[in-house]
């Protein structure tokens, strides 16, 4: 814990633990995410990565340990609008086109300065597929459409659950580039992965479950 930087801490966890039916899913963990950090949550299958992600979105609650957002307790009010989440389910409407999906996200979350739906679709490599119903995209193309949402909305913290799954080599490079740019802008991201493929930028922080 770097005391000097503590003003800059976005998310801090102290002895965070989650138990399901009183069986500990992941042990007490401590970490601090600063602006500009990309943190990699590593762990084997079943080690609780997805569970931790859901806790960080605020959807899942745990009474054990402490979670702090910018010095305040981790509630809906303090985190509102600052967090965007990309999970196993991508949150895309299959009957809408990628562009329409982005319009909805823009309405709900607002828009980052300088971003626009068409631009972000191009930058994730979906130029030409903007008006195709998401239904007709392949697994990897859908993932890219979901990644475009991250670029559009102003949230500072990205929570990405296995963003690399289903992506080809280009796609993996794309995620890494997006993460790098986000960090450079002063954003922060938590990314789960089981370590087979992972963020390749500057040495990321690592949070290990099931040490």
């Amino acid at each position, binding site marked *: 814990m770097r005391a000097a930087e503590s003003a800059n801490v976005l998310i801090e966890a102290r002895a965070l633990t989650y138990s399901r039916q009183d069986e500990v899913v992941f042990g007490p963990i401590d970490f601090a995410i600063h602006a500009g950090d990309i943190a990699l949550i590593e762990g084997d299958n079943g080690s609780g990565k997805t569970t931790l992600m859901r806790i960080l979105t605020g959807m899942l609650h745990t009474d054990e340990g402490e979670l702090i957002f910018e010095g305040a307790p981790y509630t809906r009010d303090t985190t509102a*609008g600052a967090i965007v989440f990309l999970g196993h*389910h991508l*949150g895309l*409407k299959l009957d809408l086109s990628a562009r329409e999906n982005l319009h909805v*996200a823009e*309405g*709900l*979350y607002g*828009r980052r300065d300088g971003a626009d739906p068409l631009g972000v679709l191009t930058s994730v490599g979906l130029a030409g597929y903007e008006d195709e119903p998401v239904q007709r995209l392949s697994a990897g193309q859908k993932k890219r459409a979901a990644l475009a949402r991250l670029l559009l909305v102003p949230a500072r913290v990205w929570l990405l659950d296995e963003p690399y799954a289903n992506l080809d080599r280009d796609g993996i490079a794309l995620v890494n580039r997006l993460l790098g740019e986000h960090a450079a802008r002063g954003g922060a991201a938590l990314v789960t992965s089981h370590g087979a493929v992972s963020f390749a930028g500057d040495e990321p922080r690592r949070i290990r479950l099931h040490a």
Partner: protein
Amino acid sequence: MTPGSTSAACAALFRRDLTLAWRRRGDIAMPVLYAVIVTTLFPFALGPEAALLARISGGVVLVTVLLAILLALDSLFRSDIDDGSLEQLMLAPQPLALLLGVKILAHWLTAAAPLIVVAPVLASMLRMPANVIPALIAALVLATPLLSLLGAVLVALTAGTRRSGMLLALMLLPLCVPVVIFAAGAVAAAQEGLPWVAPIAWLGAALALALVLAPMACAAALRIAMDA
């Protein structure tokens, strides 16, 4: 950075839900067709005696409309849960109750409102006298949004489960009994030539209450149901 305004969020959501309904406009017709078919079954099952059909027309139409709404309710959050959109909605920096209110409104417009249009036709097919029809329409105009609102709370509660719509029916029944009693009361009064304003007024009062409370209850229920 431009944080989204609440009105923009509601508008975007409303447009999204209407667009989706339009893209699958076959589905809008479904509750209506369901009501038509169930109503049609009754003459087959009971025989075509006109007096009998007229006597039961109000009740059968009300029950049928209720069942159709019940079936449609299941889809209120289903697809949003399955594709993760609901989580996105819950993470948005807007009051969840308001967003859910918008969703319920869109759902009522697409699923329940067409039933109000078709109900008089069904009632006349069952030989309901023409002078009773206004009471039927008034009852449905108030009863269907009430059912949608009450149903939404219960659907939200079952959001985390993989259960069928049956559980929903079980949970909704105790809540809809009073609604059915008042609606049927209005229709029955009209059928006997009595004034039917009183039960309609009760329905209106209940609707006003539900409009305020149900979206908030719905949001609370959803947070409970998704917490796992």
